[in-house]
């Protein structure tokens, strides 16, 4: 090949291999984030390039209009759903790492929803929840629980639970498999020792299992939180935000692309970004404290 010294080659490789990746990251992550910050102080419509500096007006609007900041209450459903999902996933992870026939097959079967297409899943549930012809109400009728039938998507008190359930259904298997990975990395000796000491099942869980998977548990909680804050496609695909199901992100997207208020939408995005970063820093701090 070329007879270049390794020193020259090194420089060529570093430049050749890193320039494009770094440019990509700057163009599609950093530049948008920075320009978002700028747009958030303007009254830009998103069409053309006309914009005026409006200072903190957009931010004031977010916090003073309850229909904007208030949609975070819908994100809360996804957070509660996520917590529930974490608990159930941990239970199944423990069950499927214990001695049990067929546990690998069960693990694979419970994981299936995670690999299925997300838009198709939402549409599937839309049919399932149908008041008259949906399988859920038909099933309830068939097992004699006809009185439990509901307007799963029509009832404003219920609709967000129905939507959050879809998220649980899809991601539960993923959380479970992550927990299984963490549980399997606990040395078997610890359990042997506990057994010899005569610890009960609960004590073993409380004093050996929980501390060993603490960091994964924390990670799952922060992912649940950020995931809930960023929840978007389920309500958007299912209802287009109708019936009070807007989440903060779906509202942001509508604000930018439907109502042509890109300045306001940018400010909303920045608010969300700051909240997410605050939680991540908080989690890192907590982790750091433990290591000390």
């Amino acid at each position, binding site marked *: 090949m070329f007879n270049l010294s390794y020193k020259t*080659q090194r420089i060529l*490789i570093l430049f050749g291999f890193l320039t494009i*990746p770094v440019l990509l990251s700057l163009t*599609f992550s950093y530049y948008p984030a920075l320009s978002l910050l700028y747009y958030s102080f303007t009254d830009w419509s998103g069409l053309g390039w006309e914009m005026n500096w409006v200072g903190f007006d957009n931010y004031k609007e977010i916090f003073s209009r309850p229909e904007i900041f208030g949609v975070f209450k819908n994100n809360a459903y996804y957070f509660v759903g996520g917590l529930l999902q974490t608990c159930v996933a941990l239970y199944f992870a423990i069950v499927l790492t*214990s001695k049990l026939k067929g546990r690998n097959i069960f693990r694979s079967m419970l994981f299936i929803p995670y690999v299925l297409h997300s838009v198709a899943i939402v549409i599937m549930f839309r049919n*399932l929840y*149908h008041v008259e012809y949906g399988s859920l109400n038909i099933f309830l009728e068939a097992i004699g629980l006809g009185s439990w039938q509901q307007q799963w998507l029509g009832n404003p008190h219920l609709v967000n639970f129905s939507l959050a359930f879809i998220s649980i259904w899809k991601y539960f298997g993923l959380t479970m498999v992550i927990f299984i990975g963490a549980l399997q990395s606990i040395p078997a000796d610890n359990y042997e020792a506990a057994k010899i000491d005569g610890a009960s099942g609960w004590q073993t869980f409380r004093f050996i299992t929980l501390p060993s998977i603490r960091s994964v548990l924390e990670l799952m909680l922060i992912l649940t939180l950020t995931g809930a804050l960023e929840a978007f496609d389920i309500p958007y695909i299912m209802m287009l935000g109708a019936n009070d199901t807007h989440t903060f992100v779906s509202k*942001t997207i509508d604000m930018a692309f439907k109502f042509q208020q890109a300045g306001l939408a940018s400010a909303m995005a920045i608010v969300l970004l700051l909240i997410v970063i605050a939680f991540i820093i908080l989690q890192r701090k907590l982790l750091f404290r433990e290591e000390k």
Partner: protein
Amino acid sequence: MERQNKAWTIFRYVTIAIGLFIVFFPIYSVLISAFKTKVEYYNSGLALPHDWFNFDNFRKVFKVGRLGLGFKNIFIILVVSLAGNVLIGTMVAYALGRFDFKMKKPIMGMYLVAQVIPMITTQVATFQVIKFLGAYNEIYAPMLLYLGADVLQIVIYLQFVNNIPKDLDESAMVEGASLFKIYRSIIFPLLAPATATLIIMKTISIYNDFYTPYLYMPSRKLQVVSTAIYSFVGPNASEINVISAGILIIFIPTLVIFLFLQRYIFAGVTNGAVK
């Protein structure tokens, strides 16, 4: 004790059965609906279809919903973005894993921080970048957005690079191989297991992605599977049997990947969490 164990075992199996029921009930209802006629669908509830060979719904959803086009487009997008993505990922990992230089830490930090920015929230601004590059409503838009490596990918590749003995590089250098050749014939092939896992995980996430094609490629000609089924459902909401056929077809590709390549998927998922 014996008795307690038995009760615990029964309890475990009962809860697993409930879990499996919840997972498979919606899928069962899609499966049976896909083979029913419209009249049959509205009259037969949860019963099995009369005719398991009634493929009319599948034909209709392919034709009216233009699923074939959707599959073709997403396939092209996948091939191009994954090829680029693997190249970029391995190159960055080689550069960061094998050399010490001033910009090493800042670049690593750049990837880490970028991960914290939720992509969906910056779309308002990304949209302008894509428009400026002339990629709006072109098939290049999602390709460009999927191309960049994320921090998780870099971390996984770096782990592999660090596990490749440096002796291999050095003995190749003794034989006069160029650094590029070392990357191409030693590092890249030895990263294959990580590449396999990453390709599978990325395929699933790109195939599932809705908002990127929805925002950047509104043209009907550029519909991918996600946007095709989305726009089919609106005007055909009452034909649940046809919609079910579409859902079933869309489920199949990733399901097949999962059934045959489970090992890689589980490896990817657990690696991702441990970081």
